[in-house]
C-alpha cells in the first residue's frame, strides 16, 4: 500500500464567521473542522477557562437569618470581573504567599459590612455592598454600573442595577465579613465557570425534492409544512411553493420525514447534518466577555496540548533504546 512518509502534516484550517457578538453573547459558525474540536472548545469554555470567585470567607458578625456557610456559598456564586484571571496565579502554586490567599498575585480581598438600623424596612444586602481591594476585580453589576455612569448611557434603567441579593436584614441584624477571591476553574467548582451556556449544533443541509413536491395538493403541502414542530418550511400562499425559511430551526426530530412517509411520499425531503460545520452559541456570566471566553478557551486548550507532549526523557528514548538493543 502506498502511504506517505511519516512526519507529514494533517493539519486543518478552520474557518470562522461571527454572526453576532455582544459583551456576554456570541453566535458564530465554525467550519472545516470536526466535532472533536468543536466539543473540546465547548468543554474547555465551560470547565477550564479560569475566572475569579470568592473562595474563603471569614465571618465576623452574622446575626442574619441565614447561617454562615449559606452566606459563604452565596458569595462564592457571585460572578466577579475576571479579565485579569488568565494572568493571575492559582493560589496553590503561588510562591509569594503560603497559599492562604492573601497576596496580590493570587487573591483579592473583599470586605462587606452591613447593618439594618433605622425604619421598619428590611435592608437588602447585595453584591454592590462588597468592597473590593482591587478595582480590576469586582462584582459584575458593579462594574457595569460604573461603565454606564462613565458613558452616561441614555437607556439605562437605574432601578435595575441593584446587584445580586445576598441576604435580607431585619432591623438590628448585622453582617460583617472578609472574603478572599481566588482564581479557579469550573472543573473544580461551577462557581468558577465563566460560561452560562455554550452549545453547538451541526448545520443542517435540507434538500426538498421539488419534483415530488409538485405532486402534492395545496392542502397536503400545508399539512406537511405544519407537521414540523419548529418553523423550518414556508408555504408561499401565492406561488404555492414550499421553501426552506429557517434551516437552523430544524431540531433533527425527523417529523417531516415521517410525515412524508405517512403521506406516501418517501424522499420528499432529504436532511443531513454537515459534519464539518457547526453553529456555536456562547453566553457568559459576565465575568469575562464572550470574545474573551472564546479566545481564552483556545489558549487554554493549546496549553493543555502542550502539557501532554512527550518529554525527551520518556517516549523518544524508549523508542531509540528499542532500535538500538531491543528484543
Amino acid at each position, binding site marked *: 500500500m502506498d502511504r506517505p512518509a*511519516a512526519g507529514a502534516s494533517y*493539519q486543518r484550517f478552520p474557518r470562522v464567521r461571527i454572526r453576532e457578538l455582544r459583551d456576554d453573547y456570541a453566535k458564530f459558525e465554525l467550519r472545516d473542522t*470536526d466535532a472533536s474540536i468543536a466539543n*473540546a472548545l465547548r468543554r474547555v469554555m465551560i470547565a477550564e477557562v479560569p475566572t475569579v470567585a470568592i473562595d474563603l470567607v471569614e465571618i465576623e458578625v452574622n446575626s442574619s437569618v441565614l447561617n454562615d456557610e449559606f452566606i459563604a456559598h452565596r458569595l462564592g456564586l457571585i460572578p466577579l470581573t475576571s479579565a485579569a484571571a488568565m494572568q493571575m496565579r492559582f493560589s*496553590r502554586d503561588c510562591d509569594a504567599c503560603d497559599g492562604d490567599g492573601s497576596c496580590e498575585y493570587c487573591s483579592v480581598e473583599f470586605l462587606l459590612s452591613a447593618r439594618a438600623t433605622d425604619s421598619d424596612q428590611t435592608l437588602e444586602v447585595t453584591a454592590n455592598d462588597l468592597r473590593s481591594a482591587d478595582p480590576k476585580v469586582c462584582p459584575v453589576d458593579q462594574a457595569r454600573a460604573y461603565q454606564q455612569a462613565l458613558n452616561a448611557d441614555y437607556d439605562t434603567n437605574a432601578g435595575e442595577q441593584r446587584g445580586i441579593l445576598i441576604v435580607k436584614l431585619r432591623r438590628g441584624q448585622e453582617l460583617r465579613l472578609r472574603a478572599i477571591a481566588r482564581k479557579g476553574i469550573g472543573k*473544580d467548582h461551577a462557581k468558577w465557570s465563566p460560561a452560562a451556556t455554550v452549545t453547538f449544533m451541526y448545520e443542517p443541509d435540507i434538500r426538498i425534492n421539488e419534483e415530488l413536491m409538485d405532486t402534492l395538493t395545496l392542502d397536503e403541502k400545508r399539512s406537511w409544512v405544519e407537521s414540523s414542530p419548529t418553523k423550518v418550511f414556508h408555504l408561499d400562499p401565492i406561488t404555492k411553493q414550499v421553501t426552506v425559511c429557517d434551516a437552523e430551526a430544524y431540531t433533527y426530530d425527523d417529523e417531516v420525514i415521517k410525515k412524508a412517509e405517512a403521506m406516501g411520499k418517501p424522499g420528499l425531503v432529504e436532511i443531513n447534518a454537515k459534519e464539518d460545520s457547526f453553529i456555536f452559541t456562547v453566553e457568559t456570566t459576565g465575568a469575562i466577555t464572550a470574545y474573551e471566553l472564546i*479566545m481564552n478557551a483556545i489558549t487554554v486548550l493549546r496549553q493543555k496540548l502542550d502539557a*501532554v507532549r*512527550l518529554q525527551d526523557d520518556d517516549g523518544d528514548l524508549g523508542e531509540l533504546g528499542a532500535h538500538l538493543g531491543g528484543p
Partner: protein
Amino acid sequence: MNAPDRYERFVVPEGTKKVSYERDTKIVNAASFTIEREDHTIGNIVRMQLHRDPNVLFAGYKLPHPLQYKIIVRIHTTSQSSPTQAYTQAINDLDKELEYLKQAFEDEKTRYEERAKQGF
C-alpha cells in the same frame, strides 16, 4: 473527613509523569500512552487527529474509571511510522490548527466590527 482534595482532579501528583509510554510486547509499532489528569477533551481530539494519519492503523482512547483522573491512548501504526512519532505529530497538528483558529477569530472579529459599522 476523608474526602479527597478537589484539586486532585487536575493537579498531577508529585513524582508522577504527566505522560507515560508503554510499548506493546506482542505487536510491533503499538503502544499505550497514559496521560494523567486529562479527560475526553484531550483524548477525543488526539484520537480524531490520529485517525487523519494514514500511517496510523489504530487509535483509541479510554477513560478507565470516572474517579481515576487519567486517560489511556492506544496507537498502532505501520512500520513507516511509530506510535511516538504519530502522537507527537498529532499534537503538533492540533496545536497549529488552534493557532490558526485563534488568528482566524481575531481577523473575523475585525471584519465583524467593520460590517457592524457599515450597518449590517
